[in-house]
């Protein structure tokens, strides 16, 4: 293509994406260049054909209802609200007892058994097709920025390829009622999910192993972050990853 033609800038001109100054230049060029004029006409004709062929149709009322229904089914607040209503219907005394039971059993902290089973469930879910990573990359400079704007904190993302624990990517996960970062590592053929979020308690704690559904978990708090590792690898391998995360090699 001739260097003096507008090229891609012609598209930006037609899309109103050029600065005022560059748009003026483009317009001046167009006035004197039949090649670019033809191209301009083609883009416009194509736009007309596309808009005619693909008139956006509003989603049907039935589909909108389906969307609403599936979102409401997934609302974590739904059961508690229903319970509150049911409790009041059952009378004040029953309500008091029921509500006390419900609200005192609520989130058990970062080391709770409830959270441990959520961690295991999240790991198993992530192994299903196409759910492992939202951003698949072994480059931590790709994975780390991906979390920006999605989380109110910046999760530590490291690569330990040299140590046999290669970074696979990251995704968002929902644990303990909040969105958290999931960073995925691979040891041999085994995948390890590392979940991390700002700890509610500031006190560091040593890695504590656990098991569930045949998987190993490891939980600790360090540098103000709560960590959960989960995988089907041997516990020693999780401990090794934990040491690397707690004190990254320089």
């Amino acid at each position: 293509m001739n260097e003096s033609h507008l090229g891609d800038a012609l598209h930006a001109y037609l899309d109103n994406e050029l600065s005022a100054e560059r748009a003026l230049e483009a317009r001046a060029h167009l006035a004197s260049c039949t090649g670019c004029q033809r191209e301009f006409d083609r883009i416009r004709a194509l736009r007309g054909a596309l808009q005619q062929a693909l008139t956006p149709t509003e989603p049907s009322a039935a589909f909108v209802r389906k969307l609403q229904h599936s979102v409401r089914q997934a609302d974590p607040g739904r059961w508690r609200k229903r319970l509150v209503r049911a409790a009041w219907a059952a009378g004040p005394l029953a309500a008091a007892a029921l509500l006390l039971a419900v609200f005192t059993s609520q989130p058990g902290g970062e080391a709770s058994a409830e959270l441990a089973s959520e961690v295991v469930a999240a790991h198993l879910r992530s192994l299903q097709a196409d759910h492992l990573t939202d951003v698949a990359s072994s480059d931590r400079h790709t994975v780390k920025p991906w979390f920006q704007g999605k989380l109110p904190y910046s999760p530590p993302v490291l690569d330990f390829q040299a140590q046999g624990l290669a970074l696979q990517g990251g995704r968002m996960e929902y644990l303990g009622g909040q969105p958290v970062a999931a960073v995925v590592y691979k040891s041999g053929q085994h995948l390890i999910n590392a979940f991390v979020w700002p700890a509610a308690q500031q006190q560091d704690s040593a890695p504590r192993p656990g098991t569930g559904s045949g998987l190993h978990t490891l939980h600790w708090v360090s540098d103000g972050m709560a960590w959960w590792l989960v995988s089907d690898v041997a516990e020693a391998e999780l401990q090794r990853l934990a040491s690397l995360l707690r004190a990254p090699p320089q």
Partner: protein
Amino acid sequence: MVPSSAEEFERIALPHARAALTLARALVRGEADAEDVVQEAFLRAFKYFRGFAGEHPRAWLLSIVRNEGYALLRKRGLTEAVGTFDEERDPAPSPWSSEARPETPEAALLRAVDSRSVQEALGTLPAEFREAVVLREIEQCTYREIAEIVDIPIGTVMSRLSRGRKLLYAQLSAQKGGASP
């Protein structure tokens, strides 16, 4: 009564259901698959909703629709990995500079094209060009929005649109040429 998070989510997300469907239709084949993609995306978006701190709900939602769309394409084995197009190695064809073609007025050429041909032609494009063209021409997204949805630089949005339109135009002229020699 305080609105539940589901109601709050619906207030923000439902107005973009149409754009979500348009993008899903551009990525996957068939209305049923497109609706599945949007439904999955809405659920996923709702899951992350409390962590959503951005200012552009449409771009945020469409980026999730896009991820779900590509996931389904991969599952169906319908896509090559994104980004396999190498602009340097594989330069854009330039049907537009072909002076040998008899000069038909462009508008006249495309006016006679029916919507099925347009959809078929669009279907021959790699997904990364389909999405850029449809987001721009049908949903009138700005380059900045497309950049955010697809997670690419604005300059790449421009080159994908340019390349996508050229490919599409070439495809349509070829169809046209085949139909009326």
